[in-house]
């Protein structure tokens, strides 16, 4: 049965460029997501420094516009989403008892397209100016008339490529969770993080194509002179708003649902109790996703859609508070009567609950259309979405990173440093954003690069800036903690928290290449906990020991992404007048764009023509691979 297909195994850099192992791709996502997160954080610090006092002239208005645009875009698309994908990649196959994702090749492709899209977007800083029309890039502000530089082109093309990667990733996780679950793991036995990722992936699949089209239309307007949003030619700028938010609102649930999933794993583990209301949790997740697709116009109350549309979208938005409330109470009831252990992972999870609830409450306030006419485009909105995205999403991610760090890297993070991280970050967070509610209510507009003194804004802006620095200190503590963790030897226990409930804690930390020597048999929700309760130390295997089939490493996804990257640059600069006639020739005749597409489609062809038979790990190799028994 075992065929000795010879396969080239790479070392060093080539190993990372060619890997199709979900655990390594997770680390790649984490590294690049962390890098973009740092860039976005640095942009935030610059924004807050500019606003530290009235009439500050540290930054020019143009630079400020670029910074707010890139801060939002970077944090959402290139910072937190990849970190979510890092955790999904690292954990989901382990939680469902699989050896890899359904499509290891596509997994790699998704990562590289995301990375090259992100690089393209950030190249704008050194190639003639970053996008400056806000992360929503509303037309006509983003049209060539008001944004004549290539900034917005970097936005449209960069996001297009990065979005493609996200779409591929979402599709892959959907297929993985549907088909790769271990025997006995029915849908209603899946861990909550897997459920949340499953629903998130479905949302990605149905939301991202909308922004794909939106970005294509804006690119066509800007590069080919089309008239979609150009009123002169009969276009309609409100169309952009609709398309953007039909994607954009589901996108915020795409961000928050995985955080819900993480919290639903961490709280039961450290309360030593089964998650309260598991099935209502699943139901609430699906309901949030469903409702999330029919609330987009609440971002457009002041656009003038009329009272009927505003009322409908107002009500549908408020409805979302119901399933979200179910979740909040379920977490509280999980802790109720549990033996709660407050380590860093759990501090972030418990800290998440009140913080996110505050963001939810302001969300319901904003959902009220008449009140929104007052709140719209003020710092109240800024405070709201940072409470849900930072206080929700980022708290969730930090909780998840502390929780799963031992599984991903075989090393436990230091608790003292972790607690410093939590308290500085949490206090800094509330200092930064709590005051912004009041700034907004007092009338401070968002996206302004400075403000006049003596309006009562000065002190609160100062507090906000100090808070931002404190959050930065928290992230520095976290970074030190990471560096320290890598200075200790690998090899913590399979289940370092000792209360692990799910399958990822039954295998070594970090897991061997093939994850499970034998695919486990799942006998209930919280499969590992169930075995522990029955007095077993390990899972019952569902298959005999045998050779394990593995996919081959491949460079093709990397090359394909390079091709798309080149094609994107070629498209953006197709109308540019270069000083060198050679450059003009190759760009204006679409040669660069065509070459990029040729590389991409050529690689696709190679992938189709040459079958990947993969290779096998023989049972004798298990020990060498570091699989410890018991």
């Amino acid at each position, binding site marked *: 049965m075992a065929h000795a297909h010879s396969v080239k195994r790479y070392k060093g850099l080539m190993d990372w460029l060619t890997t199709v192992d979900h655990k390594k791709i997770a680390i790649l996502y984490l590294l690049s997501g962390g890098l973009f997160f740092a860039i976005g954080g640095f942009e935030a610090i610059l924004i807050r420094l500019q606003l530290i006092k009235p009439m500050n002239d540290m930054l020019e208005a143009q630079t400020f516009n670029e910074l707010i645009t890139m801060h939002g875009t970077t944090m959402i698309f290139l910072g937190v989403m990849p970190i979510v994908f890092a955790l999904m990649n690292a954990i989901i196959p382990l939680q469902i008892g699989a050896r890899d994702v359904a499509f290891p090749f596509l997994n790699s492709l998704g990562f590289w397209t995301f990375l090259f899209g992100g690089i393209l977007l950030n190249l704008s800083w050194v190639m003639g100016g970053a996008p400056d029309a806000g992360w929503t890039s509303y037309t006509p502000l983003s049209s060539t008339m008001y944004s004549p530089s290539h900034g917005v082109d970097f936005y449209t093309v960069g996001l297009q490529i990065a979005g493609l990667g996200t779409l591929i990733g979402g599709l892959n996780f959907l297929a993985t969770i549907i088909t790769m679950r271990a025997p006995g793991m029915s849908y209603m036995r899946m861990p909550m993080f897997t459920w949340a990722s499953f629903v998130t992936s479905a949302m990605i699949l149905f939301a991202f194509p909308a922004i794909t089209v939106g970005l294509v239309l804006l690119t066509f307007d800007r590069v080919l002179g089309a*008239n979609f949003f150009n009123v002169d030619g009969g276009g309609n700028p409100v169309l952009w708003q609709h398309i953007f938010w039909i994607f954009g609102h589901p996108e915020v649930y795409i961000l928050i649902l995985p955080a819900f999933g993480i919290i639903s794993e961490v709280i039961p583990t450290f309360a030593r109790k089964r998650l309260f209301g598991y099935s209502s949790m699943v139901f609430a997740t699906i309901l949030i996703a469903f409702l999330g697709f029919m609330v987009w116009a609440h971002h457009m109350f002041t656009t003038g859609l009329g009272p009927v549309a505003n009322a409908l979208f107002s009500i549908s938005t408020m409805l979302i508070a119901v399933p979200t409330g179910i979740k909040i109470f379920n977490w509280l009831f999980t802790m109720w009567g549990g033996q709660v252990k407050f380590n860093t992972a759990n501090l972030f999870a418990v800290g998440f609950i009140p913080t996110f609830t505050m963001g939810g409450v302001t969300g319901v306030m904003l959902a009220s259309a008449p009140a929104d006419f007052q709140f719209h485009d003020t710092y109240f909105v800024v405070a709201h979405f940072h409470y849900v995205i930072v206080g929700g999403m980022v708290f969730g991610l930090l909780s998840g990173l502390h929780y799963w760090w031992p599984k991903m890297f075989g090393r436990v993070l230091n608790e003292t440093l972790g607690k410093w991280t939590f308290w500085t970050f949490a206090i800094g967070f509330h200092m930064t954003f709590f005051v912004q509610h009041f700034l907004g209510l007092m009338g401070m507009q968002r996206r302004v690069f400075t403000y006049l003194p003596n309006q009562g804004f000065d002190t609160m802006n100062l507090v906000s800036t100090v808070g931002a620095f404190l959050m930065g200190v928290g992230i520095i503590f976290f970074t030190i903690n990471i560096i320290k963790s890598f200075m200790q030897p690998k090899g913590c226990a399979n289940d370092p928290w000792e209360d692990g409930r799910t399958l990822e804690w039954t295998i070594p930390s970090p897991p061997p290449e093939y994850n499970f020597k034998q695919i486990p048999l799942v006998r209930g929700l919280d499969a590992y906990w169930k075995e522990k309760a029955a007095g077993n130390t390990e899972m019952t295997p569902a298959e005999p020991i045998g050779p394990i089939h593995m996919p081959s490493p491949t460079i093709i996804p990397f090359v394909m992404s390079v091709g798309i990257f080149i094609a994107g640059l070629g498209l953006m600069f197709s109308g540019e007048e270069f000083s060198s006639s050679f450059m003009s020739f190759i760009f204006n005749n679409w040669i660069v764009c065509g070459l990029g597409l040729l590389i991409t489609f050529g690689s696709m062809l190679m992938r189709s023509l040459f079958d990947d038979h993969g290779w096998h790990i023989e049972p004798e190799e298990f020990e060498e691979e570091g699989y410890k028994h018991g």
Partner: protein
Amino acid sequence: MANVHTEHGNGQLPQYPEKATLEGRNKILAFWLFLGGEAVLFGTLFATFLTLRNQTNEGPTAAELFSLPLTAAATFILLVSSLTSVFAIQALHRHKVKELITWLIVTVLLGIGFLALEIYEFYEYMHLENFGMTTSAFSSAFYTLVGFHGAHVAFGVLWIGVLIGQLYKKGLTVVTAPKIYVSAMYWHFIDVVWVFIFTVVYLLGKVG
């Protein structure tokens, strides 16, 4: 994953070779999901077109521009190509490789025929009617929606063409069968999209 290499086992191809391996089943499932995403993509393009279809900016209108006999012929060609694609899959299930290849070639030829008509149509609009991408919001929406579909047909033609070559070289196996199957799913999908384009763009355009 022990059943990956069943084709080496007894040399017998299972009746549904496209679903014989986990890889094959995953591919088909994921392709259904992908088509769900594609439906949203075209849905957004249709919504854009419906919003802008009367914004002619003093350029040609739909009623002036479209010629129903031409698009009806294109529709007929594409619908027939869907039928021949079904014949191809039936041949696949009967393990008749020659027949399969023949029907795939017919499908590809019909796809090329459709593309030729579309290119001719676009050429006519651009050069004889002065109806280009930049003419009006209607023209932008028209070229983008119909062009996206045309690009999908062109990709399908190339894709199925490559698969025909693989069938010649590798024969029908549990590796090639899922590829043929999902390409047929794709082909039917772009056919369905065209039915909507014919209705929403051309028929609705003619009646105003």
